[in-house]
C-alpha cells in the first residue's frame, strides 16, 4: 500500500467514554473550533443530543459476528454501511468522528477497519479516544466492565472534570488508568479543554507511528512487577502510586538483541489465537535476525497487522519489545514464549 493512497484515506476518530464523562462536550469542541476541517459525525441516539454539524449520521451500534472462524471477531455492521454511504460524499468532508454509547465495546469498531475490505480502502482508524470522568472513573472501573474496556483500548485518554477532584484524587485516578493502560497518551482537562492536536490526527494505528505516540512505552517495565495482584493493591516507589487492576493488565517485555523470525512469527500467531479473546490490544517493535529493518506489528484481539518498517539507525540499539493489554493475561506464558524467540 503506497503512502499516497494511505494519505487519501479518510481518518476516523472513535470517541468512547462512560455515560456522562464528557464525550459530547469534546465532540462539540472539536466541531466548533476554527480548524477549517469538515467532519462527518456518526452518533447514537440520533437527535437526542444537540450537535451543530452539517453531516450527522445516526447509528444503531449493530455488532455483527463474522463467520470466519475467529471467535472474538465482531464488526459494526452499521459502520460498514455508513462509511460506504459517506463515500458518496467523498471530497465534501475531511474526517469522520464516531461517537459510541457509554456502554459500547471499542473492539468491534476497531475491528471493522481490519476486517472489511471496502472500509479499509476508504478509511483508516486514526485513534480511539476515551473520555474519563476524574471523579467517577475509579467507581466505574469497579462496577462497569465497559469502562475498563474503554480505558484499556484507548490510544488517547482525556481525564476530564479535573476541577471536581483534589490533586490526590487526580493522582489516584491517573494511577488506576496507568495500571490498565500505561501506553495511551493521557491529558488532563476541565471541560474537555484539550488541544485538538492531542485528539485528532494521532495516526495511532499507523505502524510507522507505533513508538512516537507512546511516551510511556519505554518506561513501562521500569516499575516493579509485583505478582501479588490484588484489587487496590498499592505500592509506592519513586513517589508514584502504582495500582494493579485485578483483571485488566498490561504486559510489556523487552528482549535485548534480535529474535528469530522462524520462532517469533509462529509464536505471535499462536498467542493471539490462543489468548486473543483476552488480548484487547498488542503492539511491538522487533529486531529480526539478519534484517536491517525494524519489524512492527499491532493487533486487536485475534487480528494482527505487521510490516517491515524503516531501517535500524546506527545509533539505535537493536532490541525487541512487545506490549499486550488485556484481561486475565497469562503473563508468564507470554513472557517465556517471547523470550524463547531470541535469536
Amino acid at each position, binding site marked *: 500500500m503506497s503512502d499516497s493512497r494511505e494519505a487519501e484515506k479518510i481518518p476516523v476518530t472513535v470517541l468512547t467514554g462512560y455515560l456522562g464523562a464528557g464525550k459530547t462536550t469534546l465532540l462539540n469542541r472539536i466541531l466548533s473550533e476554527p480548524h477549517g476541517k469538515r467532519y462527518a459525525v456518526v452518533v447514537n441516539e440520533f*437527535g437526542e443530543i444537540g450537535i451543530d454539524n452539517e453531516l450527522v*449520521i*445516526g447509528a*444503531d451500534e449493530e455488532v*455483527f459476528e463474522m463467520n470466519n472462524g475467529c471467535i472474538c471477531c465482531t464488526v459494526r455492521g452499521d459502520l460498514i454501511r455508513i462509511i460506504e*454511504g459517506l463515500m*458518496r*460524499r467523498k471530497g465534501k468532508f475531511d474526517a469522520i468522528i464516531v461517537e459510541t454509547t457509554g456502554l459500547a465495546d471499542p473492539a468491534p469498531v476497531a475491528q471493522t477497519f481490519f476486517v472489511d475490505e471496502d472500509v479499509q480502502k476508504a478509511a483508516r482508524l486514526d485513534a480511539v479516544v476515551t473520555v474519563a470522568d476524574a471523579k467517577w472513573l475509579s467507581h466505574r472501573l469497579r462496577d462497569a466492565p465497559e469502562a475498563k474496556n474503554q480505558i484499556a483500548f484507548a490510544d488517547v485518554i482525556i481525564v476530564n472534570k479535573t476541577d471536581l477532584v483534589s490533586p490526590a484524587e487526580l493522582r489516584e485516578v491517573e494511577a488506576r488508568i496507568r495500571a490498565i493502560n500505561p501506553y495511551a497518551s493521557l491529558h488532563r482537562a476541565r471541560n474537555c479543554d484539550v488541544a485538538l492536536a492531542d485528539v485528532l490526527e494521532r495516526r495511532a494505528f499507523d505502524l510507522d507511528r507505533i513508538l512516537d505516540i507512546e511516551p510511556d512505552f519505554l518506561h513501562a517495565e521500569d516499575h516493579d512487577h509485583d505478582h501479588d495482584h490484588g484489587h487496590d493493591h498499592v505500592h509506592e516507589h519513586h513517589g508514584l502510586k502504582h495500582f494493579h487492576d485485578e483483571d485488566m493488565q498490561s504486559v510489556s517485555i523487552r528482549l535485548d538483541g534480535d529474535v528469530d523470525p522462524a520462532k517469533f512469527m509462529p509464536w505471535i500467531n499462536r498467542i493471539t489465537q490462543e489468548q486473543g479473546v483476552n488480548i484487547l490490544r498488542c503492539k511491538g517493535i522487533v529486531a529480526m535476525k539478519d534484517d536491517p529493518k525494524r519489524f512492527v506489528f499491532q493487533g486487536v484481539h485475534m487480528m494482527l497487522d505487521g510490516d517491515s518498517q524503516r531501517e535500524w539507525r546506527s545509533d539505535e540499539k537493536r532490541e525487541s519489545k512487545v506490549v499486550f493489554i488485556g484481561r486475565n493475561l497469562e503473563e508468564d506464558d507470554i513472557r517465556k514464549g517471547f523470550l524463547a524467540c531470541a535469536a
Partner: protein
Amino acid sequence: MTESQATTSLTQHLRAFDAGAQVVAAAFLGDAPALTLADGAVLLGEPDAAKRIATHPDAAILSAVCDGETLLAGGDDGRVVALRAGGETETIAEEKGRWIDALALRGRNFAWSAGKAVRARDEAGVVKTREAPSSVRGLAFQPKGYRLAATHYNGVTLWFPKVEGAPQVLEWKGAHLDATFSPDGRFLVSSMQENALHGWRLVDARNMRMTGYPGKTRSLSWSHDGNWLATSGAEASVVWPFKDKDGPMGKAPRECGVREARVTRVAFHPRALVLAIGYADGLVLLCRLADAAEILVRRPGGGPVSALAWSGNGSRLLIGLESGEAGLLNLPG
C-alpha cells in the same frame, strides 16, 4: 482454444464521456442512457445531449433501481424519487433524517428501506411498514405476487405487505447484503459480508452456500434464460448454474474473464449468453459463456467500474466508473 482466446476489440465503438461525478448505477430509461450520480443527479440522454436532472439536490444518492420505465433513486436526504423517461420526477417518500439504503421496483410496486424500517407501496399508493431485526441492506420483489425480500443480519425476511401476521424468515448466520430472485422465482440469493453468497430454494427453504470469493459480491446478474447467475467479487466473474432443480448445488461454477483484477460489476446481455464484466482497474470486456471468448470493450484506466447496463434490446452497453468517467458502446451491425 487459441482462436477464441485471441482477444478482439470493440474499443473503437465505445464512446467515452464524462459523467461529472461518481457513477452509482447505470440504466436505460426508455431508450435513453441514464447514469445515476453520487452527487444527487441523474444524467439522462445521449452523451452529447444529456440532461442533468437533480433528483436529490444537495444530497448524495445511495441506491438506484430501474426497470426501463421508471428509475427509482434513494438519497442520504431520506428521499425516494421516481424518474420517468420523459425526465419528469415524482417524490415517492421522504424519511426525515434517515438514509435510503435499499430500493426495489416492480411495475408500480415500490419498496425502500431506511435503517431497520422497510416500506412497500402498492399500485394504489398504499404504504405498509415493517421493522426488520437489523438494518436492511438489500430489497427485491419476488417476480410474481406482491412479496418482498429484505436482507438483514442472520437472514432474509420474505414479506407479503398486504398480509397481516408474521412473515417468513429464511435464516442463515451472518450479515446479508444484496438480494435477488431468479427470474422464475424458484431461488432467492443474497450476497454476504463474509465474501460468500447464500441461496435458498424457495419451495423447501433448502440452503445453498456459494463460497470461495476473495472479496464481497456486490453485483449480481441473471442470464436472460434464468439459467445462470453471474457475480462479482473475484478475479473473474463466477457464474453459477441455476437450471436444475437443485440450483448450483454439487456443480462447479463457470469462470468468465479471468484477469489479475477484481471484477466489480457484471451485466448479462438481455438476449444472449454474453456477459459484460467491469473490473477494479476500469477495464470492461464481453465474455461469451459458451466458450469464454472475450472481446475488449474498454481499456484499463480511471479506477473501478461502478455501473454497467445493457439497453433493452441489447444493442448498447452503458458503463460508469467511480471516477465519473463513462462510456457508451454501440454494438456494430
